[in-house]
């Protein structure tokens, strides 16, 4: 992975950014080549978002649901960090908590530092000036995320007018430019259309346009392709990388699909039962896996290179209830390596050996290297000993 530290470009005029982006669109129109992360600008050393010990609880009739427990990570300018996990692992809840978008019943604790300011401690009014302008969001289901009774142009312009006092006409013009940028044909006419007149993929493009219309520093993309057709998924992800360069923002990509992560993210954070269980650069996590759960996830992906007749190796069982959390490692009931230690104590998220790459040396503010490879497992050494950690899940996960 090429990670040449490039100084952050000076703040550009919106118009200038658009020119650049238009050029990109044109280029993409001529020869359609799959864009990968290597084609985009890499992250800088500057930390832009830092999450410390974020926890979220929901009181329900059946008990307190501990949806997110002690999540910490940091995000640098222009970096793509992917949070991966099964449904119910707390990845969406944790991202929603960043901008205070959870229902009022949620109890959120910890710190979310955007350029040093704690978003969770902010007053509504200050938080509002961050939402949509500094940190924007793309939601999972484009079918329901747009208001059916307002035109797309109005909804886009509204995002501009929420933060800037400009005549509505100018905001609409900006909306048109954004629709152009995300590749919606005849943008000027489409401004007057209503969401139901767009296909799912087009609506998600509209959502992306809405997310970048104020040149944010961070885009949180919450499973942006889950609700879409497979053929459209790739286009949307590519578009996401394209606009990332156009507006110079970092991306927090939440997904349950490791395949999506591979070509898109600089770093990966794997979540299980509400907490991170493995963090590292994408290569480290994929090729030097140090947590059996990640290995299990990787084993569940069909591969083009696997031998004919070879079976997938899915993880047995289901994630634990978030209400009555078991005492030990939450993955232990499903883990082929689990022993009594695992069932009695939950392993901390600690550095492992499996780290390579230039960033390992550069410590971040907290003293832990940004690209260190952390895992939450008592037995990570046993994974380090083998070439193919997914093999542990062979034969239905029965330990050899």
């Amino acid at each position, binding site marked *: 992975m090429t990670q040449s530290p490039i100084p952050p470009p000076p703040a550009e005029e919106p118009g200038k950014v658009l020119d650049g982006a238009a050029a990109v669109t044109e280029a993409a129109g001529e020869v359609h080549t799959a864009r990968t992360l290597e084609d985009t600008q890499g992250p800088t050393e500057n930390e832009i978002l830092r999450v410390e010990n974020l926890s979220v609880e929901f009181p329900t*009739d059946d008990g307190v649901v501990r949806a997110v427990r002690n999540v910490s990570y940091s995000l640098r300018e222009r970096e793509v960090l992917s949070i991966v996990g099964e449904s119910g692992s707390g990845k969406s809840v944790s991202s929603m908590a960043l901008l205070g978008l959870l229902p009022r019943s949620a109890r959120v604790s910890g710190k979310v530092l955007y350029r040093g300011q704690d978003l969770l401690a902010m007053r509504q009014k200050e938080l509002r000036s961050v939402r949509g302008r500094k940190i924007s969001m793309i939601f999972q289901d484009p079918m329901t995320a747009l208001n059916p009774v307002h035109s797309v142009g109005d909804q886009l312009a509204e995002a501009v007018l929420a933060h800037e006092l400009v005549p509505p006409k100018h905001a609409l013009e900006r909306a048109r430019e954004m629709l152009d940028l995300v590749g919606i044909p005849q943008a000027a006419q489409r401004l007057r259309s209503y969401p139901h007149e767009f296909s799912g993929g087009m609506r998600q493009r509209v959502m992306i346009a809405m997310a970048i219309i104020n040149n944010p520093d961070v885009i949180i993309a919450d499973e942006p392709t889950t609700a879409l057709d497979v053929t459209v998924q790739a286009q949307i992800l590519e578009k996401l990388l394209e606009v990332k360069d156009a507006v110079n923002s970092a991306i927090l990509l939440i997904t349950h699909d490791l395949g999506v992560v591979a070509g898109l993210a600089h770093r990966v954070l794997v979540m299980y039962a509400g907490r991170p269980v493995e963090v590292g650069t994408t290569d480290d996590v994929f090729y030097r896996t140090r947590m059996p759960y990640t290995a299990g996830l990787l084993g569940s992906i069909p591969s083009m290179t696997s031998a004919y007749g070879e079976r997938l190796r899915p993880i047995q069982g289901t994630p634990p209830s978030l209400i009555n959390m078991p005492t030990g490692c939450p993955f232990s009931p499903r883990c082929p390596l689990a022993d009594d230690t695992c069932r009695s104590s939950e392993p901390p998220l600690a550095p492992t050996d499996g780290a390579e790459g230039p960033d390992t040396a550069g410590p971040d503010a907290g003293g832990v290297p940004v690209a260190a490879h952390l895992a939450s497992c008592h037995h990570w050494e046993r994974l380090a000993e083998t070439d193919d950690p997914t093999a542990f899940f062979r034969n239905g996960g029965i330990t050899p």
Partner: protein
Amino acid sequence: MSTPENTPSGATGPDPDSGASNEAQGMNIAARTQWQLVRARFFRHRAALVGMFLLISVVLLAFTSIGYGPLPGWWDKSPTATGSLSDGGNPTLSLVPQFLGGSGLALGEHPFGQDNVGKDYFALTMKGTQVSLIVAFVVGIVATVVGTVLGACAGYFRGWTESVLMRVTDVLIAIPLLAIAAAAAKIAGQAGIFYLGMVLGLVTWTQTARLVRSSVLSLREKEFVEAARSVGTSSARIIFKHILPNTVGVIIVSVTLAIAAAVLLESALSFLGMGVQPPDTSLGRLITDYRSAMSTRPWLFYWPGLFIILIALSVNFIGDGLRDAFDPRQNRVRD
């Protein structure tokens, strides 16, 4: 029976290797059936419980006190016997304890007072309550059965069956409820309270039919219905075994709403002189009979009104509890 939304998370999935240890770690919450969940939610709904208690109390009070039909009750006065007025017919019921200056908790001779010819008003009110309850329950059941069957057929068969049934519903809805109910009640009222209840049920089923139809419309597209159809299950069996059990929430809630509405409809019709006919009496009839006594004997006016409110309110609360129990949207947590 259990739809996906109703399955508690964390309680599913075969896990042959670690079943025993899971239980020890609290990994498995005992799987609860939908009925158990519904019951648990209902019993958490305080207002519904109070409503349940009140309704059962009113039913027991009304039917045990003066008895029903040939069965004798514990109250020694009859709703029809006239007598001499004691204390101008004022109620003798006392609820203020002695240490607060009242005369203690006591029923006295005529707890609800007497009317102008000395009839015991407690017995009369109980008689009216019996009749109002019977009519309301008959209306509720008839309306629900008719509405459910017609709604389910309209929703399931589509095509001309649906068109015909929906046009019939439209016709009924186009006539003001009070007008058709008054006319029907005037025709059936003479024949007794059961006929009255049935006839009112036959003109008030439209709401239930609409609710059931829309619920069936969405259910008939579900995979399990497709599956049943693909193996050649008969339509009747699909409707009664696969679709209706899944609309049970809608149906039960609409029973309670129908009953609450029926209490008020019957009393309004009786008030207009079109519902229950003498010698029968009902709570609404009592109010209209003693309406002019408002300024001289207000208790003749208050008691039946209070009982109407008591019945309607408790049924409404029960309905609310049931709705929450069957459709627990408020404790949905999304990832």
